[in-house]
């Protein structure tokens, strides 16, 4: 039996939707599982998997209460607010310093005589910093931070996240500025504005989509970091990922209901960022810079 062309097309479309729905479930199920586990009683967790609240188990807010208003309150809130202060602050700094450099690399000519480097070599040197596995430089950081008294401080963590995000910020902003028309800033320069004035008053306002997208990405990288926090903090400046990771390795075994709630508190801001960032990514802002 042969299918008509229309039937073949409908069959193909049907398979496409089926696969799309399957992948949607795969993407969302882990988050759903965290949500339902966080409202289960310990006994319900250990009885084996159950899937629907009120149908195969009775939900409870015990775990959430224990973490947010109960005995764990101080530790949880401190870690969360540490992350919520350090990630955006370092992202703002990385975007500020990174956009200055990104702008410079598209508007000025640089030449370093000893290395015979020009703008493109400088840009490549900056982005190549991201190739470096952090574990290679983490011990020197630790020694450096001990000497400078920066271990377990907010300033120290903001500094390290800023530097860690800088190559990415320079790269994306450089690509963005390269595509920005120059007429407006050049007429401002002719009218007697300094470079910095032209940059601040004309270029930056025109670049807000690039700045926002880069900020969101830097914020995500900082928020999600675990290695730097693990090496350089222990109590005052601990971050949320570090708190979650440490919580599961306690001696009485993993308490999944608490861990699920903590994991949700950790990923909640990132879900918001994912919703915000999608439009910038699909507009080609970030993707363009990769090519």
């Amino acid at each position, binding site marked *: 039996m042969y299918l008509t062309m229309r039937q073949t097309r409908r069959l193909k479309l049907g398979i496409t939707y089926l*696969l799309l729905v399957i992948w949607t479930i795969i993407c969302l199920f882990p988050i759903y599982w965290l949500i339902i586990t966080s409202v289960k009683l310990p006994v319900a967790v250990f009885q084996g998997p159950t899937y629907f609240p009120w149908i195969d188990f009775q939900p409870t807010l015990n775990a959430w209460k224990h973490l947010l208003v109960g005995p764990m309150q101080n530790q949880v809130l401190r870690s969360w607010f540490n992350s919520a202060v350090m990630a955006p602050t370092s992202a703002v700094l990385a975007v500020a310093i990174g956009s200055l450099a990104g702008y410079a690399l598209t508007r000025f000519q640089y030449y370093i005589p000893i290395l015979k480097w020009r703008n493109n070599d400088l840009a490549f040197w900056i982005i190549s910093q991201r190739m470096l596995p952090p574990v290679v430089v983490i011990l020197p950081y630790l020694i450096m931070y001990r000497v400078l008294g920066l271990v377990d401080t907010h300033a120290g963590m903001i500094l390290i996240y800023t530097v860690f995000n800088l190559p990415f910020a320079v790269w994306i902003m450089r690509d963005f500025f390269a595509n920005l028309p120059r007429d407006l800033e050049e007429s401002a320069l002719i009218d007697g504005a300094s470079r910095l004035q032209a940059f601040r008053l004309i270029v930056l306002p025109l670049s807000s989509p690039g700045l926002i997208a880069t900020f969101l990405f830097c914020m995500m990288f900082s928020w999600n970091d675990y290695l730097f926090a693990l090496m350089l903090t222990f109590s005052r400046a601990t971050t949320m990922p570090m708190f979650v990771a440490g919580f599961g390795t306690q001696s009485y075994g993993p308490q999944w209901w608490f861990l699920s709630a903590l994991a949700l508190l950790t990923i909640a801001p990132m879900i918001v960022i994912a919703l915000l960032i999608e439009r910038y990514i699909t507009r080609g802002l970030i993707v363009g810079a990769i090519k």
Partner: protein
Amino acid sequence: MSTNLAGQLAKVSAPQEAARPRGISSDPSKHIFLLPAVILILLFSLFPLFFSLALAFLSWDLSRLTGGVRFIGLENFITLVNDARFWNTARVTLTFVLGAVSLEYLVGLGVALLLNQDIRFRRFFRVVFLMPMMLTPAAVAYAGRMLFNEGQGPINHIIKLLGGPQIPWFSNSSLALPSLILVDTWEWTPFMMIVLLAGLQSLPPEVYEAARVDGANDWQTFRHITFPMLAPVSVTIILIRALEAFKLFDIVTVMTGGGPGTATEPVTLYAYLVGMKNGNLGYASAIAYSLLIMVIISSTLFLKLVRQRAVQAAE
């Protein structure tokens, strides 16, 4: 692409600019723009990189009070070459990079092809499919531990309902690494997908028109048109993802801690344990440096292979 073009344009227009009375390239403020970034990067990457290299030639053991810091030449590297545990971590890291990056690329390409069709709710699918790569790996690792849990996890439960066997995802030493690769694939497929989707959307429609006129079927179109045209961007994202995958630390530390035994212990975790838990800074630096060497060799080999293939294809 655009940056290359901008760079070429800048090169072409440079002499004219220099001739201007208030030339752009002679503006003294240009250093104010670039220096903050360059100084920070020099301080935080070049200095530690050399410091770390120096450490690798020292015996600096925090666990021993006497002895202090001694220069021991290549001794750390000699120990490294004879360290079976190190070679195991190297194997784990390479297997992980190879497995995870290929799986992520294949799945990402598949999902991108699905999304590139004329479908409804595309925006919704894109947002949902993008989500995993934004989420904190340490938290994702816990979700993974619960989902793959042998007795109480839903994955084994669903397999059981379908009549399949109970799989010891993380307690079996030969399955633990593939399980880690699955979790990493969940997290990082979106990166491949989003870039490949943008690549697919930028392909010129005329070529497809021509292929359809010539009577090419879907597979032929994909094999001879779509895939070759995606090759440059594929090379780039595979390289980017591989460079990131070599840094594997968060997911494995939380999910398996390197176990069972040392079956899933990557180089990064070994360096961390030697440096932080044992306080042997010199040896830890030698291990970490060997990772850097591995990264450089692998990416050079990969690019060489790609170039050879490109030359062969051109002939």
